[in-house]
């Protein structure tokens, strides 16, 4: 029963599949639009402009890893941007102080999410859906449903104007954020605990983990990081739009799920998420250069989410099958593992109200 060689070619393709497809997409668009697509300025825009979406996705990744959906993150982003704009533009407050307040408000919304979901034991999907709508309402209310522009220059400077190696600073903020999230999940006991909480809540509780606290903190982190993304967002555009951020929810989910099929397959992971963000935006920007209409954006993001979830389900199943092939004598345990998380025979639906584990949304069959 010795372990078979692990890094096969097949494993490489699976691990870096999204990156490979990304490169192919870049090549295709470059061939189709050789004058506009493969230009330095286009790539610079591509890399830098996605910082708000990227940071938002990283925030979303945290509660997803802990097994909870948070559908309010994009609304938090919008509210956060609006808070910065109103305090800074309408009330003349220092922009950094305004940003700090926005992040605190975001964390507070996350705390409220956490307390309702975890404390009262209500399904996060519904709670955060409602909370997101409430937050949207608040945003429209405090802004009178109109965009606020005229953000102080220092924030804009620090986000888009100043450059490093030709790229706006916001790109590096995104890199730093991804590195921090990666570090937490890969190299700290706390991150590992979140992972166990997400995959086996009861196991985690009986192992002495403070499951409730961990879940609530994951919501708080998502709120704070979402708000931070909002700050970067107003820094990018110099203004706050009361509805703009909401359209980022779907791409963020698509990025996190697509990200879970790559780099560290079968697991929500920061670098994978980053790759997915860029894959998605490359597609959108290329399509825009081809002159297709804007509705294609919705088709692309929506399609990408469904395909991402499908892929992450397949990734997981393949991984299990491959691992099983190393243990020729005991395939039954494979089936048991499948059953334990609920899939396949009718009985498996019992457990299938379980929260999203890395790419387990499809609840892939035992066999």
């Amino acid at each position, binding site marked *: 029963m010795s372990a078979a060689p692990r890094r096969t070619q097949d494993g490489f393709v699976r691990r870096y599949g999204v990156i490979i497809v990304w490169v192919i997409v870049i090549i295709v668009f470059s061939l189709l639009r050789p004058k506009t697509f493969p230009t330095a300025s286009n790539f610079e825009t591509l890399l830098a402009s996605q910082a708000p979406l990227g940071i938002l996705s990283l925030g979303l990744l945290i509660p997803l890893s802990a097994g909870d959906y948070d559908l309010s993150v994009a609304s938090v982003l919008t509210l956060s941007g609006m808070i910065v704009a109103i305090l800074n533009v309408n009330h003349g407050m220092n922009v950094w102080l305004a940003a700090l307040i926005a992040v605190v408000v975001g964390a507070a919304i996350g705390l409220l999410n956490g307390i309702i979901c975890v404390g009262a034991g209500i399904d996060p999907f519904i709670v955060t859906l409602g909370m997101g709508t409430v937050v949207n309402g608040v945003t429209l209310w405090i802004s009178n449903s109109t965009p606020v522009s005229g953000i102080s220059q220092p924030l804009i400077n620090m986000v888009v104007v100043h450059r490093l190696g030709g790229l706006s600073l916001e790109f590096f903020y995104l890199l730093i954020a991804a590195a921090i999230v990666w570090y937490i999940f890969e*190299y700290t*006991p706390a991150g590992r605990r979140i992972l166990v909480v997400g995959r086996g809540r009861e196991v985690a*509780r*009986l192992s002495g*983990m403070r499951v409730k606290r961990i879940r609530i903190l994951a919501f708080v982190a998502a709120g704070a990081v979402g708000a931070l993304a909002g700050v970067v967002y107003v820094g990018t555009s110099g203004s706050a739009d009361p509805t703009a951020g909401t359209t980022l929810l779907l791409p963020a989910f698509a990025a996190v799920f697509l990200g879970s099929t790559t780099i560290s397959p079968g697991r929500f992971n920061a670098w994978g998420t980053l790759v997915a963000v860029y894959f998605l935006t490359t597609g959108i920007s290329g399509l825009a250069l081809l002159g297709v209409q804007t509705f294609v954006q919705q088709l692309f993001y929506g399609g990408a989410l469904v395909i991402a979830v499908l892929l992450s389900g397949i990734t997981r199943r393949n991984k*299990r099958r491959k691992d099983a092939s190393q243990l*020729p004598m005991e395939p039954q345990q494979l089936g048991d593992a499948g*059953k334990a998380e609920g899939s396949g025979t009718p009985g498996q639906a019992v457990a299938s109200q379980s929260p999203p584990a890395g790419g387990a949304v499809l609840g892939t069959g035992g066999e």
Partner: protein
Amino acid sequence: MTQASSGPLLSIRNLTKYFGASAALDDVSLSVGYGEIRGLVGQNGSGKSTLIKCLAGYHSQDLEWHLELPGKELTRALHPGEITAFGVAFVHQDLGVLGDLSVLENLLLTEFSNDHRRYIGWRKERAKAREIFKQFGLDLDPAAKLSTLRPVEQAQVAIVRAVLQLRSAKQADHPGVLVLDEATTFLDRAGREGMYDLLRAVASEGSGVIFVSHDINEVLKVCDAVTVLRDGRVVADAPVSELTHDDLVSLIVTGKRGVEVISRPARRETLPAAATGKTSLEVEGLSGDLLNDVSLTVRPGEIVGVTGIVGSGWELVVEYLCGARRAESGTCRLGGKSIDLEAMSPDKALALSMVYVPSDRLREAIVPDLSLRENVMQPVLENAFEKGRLRLRRLTNACKDVLEHYAVVPAEPAMPMGLLSGGNQQKAVLAKWLQTDPLYVLLNEPTQGVDIGARQRIYELVRGAAARGAAVVYASADWEEVAGISDRVVVISEGRVAERIESADISVDAIAQAAYLGMRRSADLSKAAALLEDL
């Protein structure tokens, strides 16, 4: 009323199945006659599950066999589910029942998936269900929500459903074969009687039963004949009347008869000298749910068994102690510290060096998708956190050492936990906690669903923990096991301590007597008498 038909109902001949280069099954034959209950036993990895999976159609490659059913002969592999149409139905370990649905809805589940009915006549279906329950002597309410049923009743529902499936098999004009794939593993020993009665009733209708189990007593009790697999080969095929308990154990473990194998822990004559500086676990006035004012003391180095009959609440003792559930009242003294059990939680228990091994391994003890490293090293992650980050390589190496030390096979830190056999999973769970050198160890059914070889190892591990000075509470429904491993036994009956049996007096009979007689002292005299008769 066994059918007059002669010859086997289902026969597998010369089944060989390869995984890559190694043969998981090598020239295996198995047959079931009309009205026969055929046991299929063997350790994990012996090939029983592979055989069942071949029948169920989950293995299509590298398979050679001769499969015969009345009027049917095949040499090709089956498609998943194909065999159902030939009159073979399965009940697996997880039963495949839905707790939120009614008994009746559960019974109809498979029909819903196979039939294309436009309309369901609920009244008619209810009457049909009542009739079949009556026929098999079951007292079940079709309208009851399944989750309100006892585990054994849930299993009965699963079996009845499988029988209905046999009856509705369109391509079969024979009574069918029911395959129970370790379906009794998660049932309480005392509650299994109801299962055996049902199986006998099913067999008396002429159906064949293939009964896969780890439990030798159970196999001897319920089966007519038994096939023993070892390393993918049949090492015995005999009527149970020709086999003793020791024969079977010997065959399973060594492949030969007459080799002495200890399947139960032998009594230990002397207590290990209690480690100095370690303190006793003293529980007082523990109440909650069924439990009423339970007290017990466990000294360092001592293993105290906690047991009783099903429904007496014995398993609650450990669940309350570690805070897996909240007790209504009670205190626990650990080394001079007094803790209210109403406020106990697993994290507090852990902070006091008290560890808990739950009975429901798949749902409470392991994360099947995560690697062994992530499962086993979880309590000691902090040790590998140095200079701001987890030292993953060191963690992996430490994990390998731990796995080897606790005889987990394979000792592969990167292997997903779910791929291990039940016994190895349980060893890994013990390794996870015992590596922390805990002062207090609470075990809940630690050998459930574990084969004989691994059981031995688990007993050794538990003894080892006690020898290092841990106070161990060993809760189990297996009286032989409890009698063998415990230094003292606390028998719970109807939520109260019925008897404390001291070391020299421990025996299965003494436990049984205390467990059943405890009821006599309470109001229900007739119940106790009835149960004693069964004994």
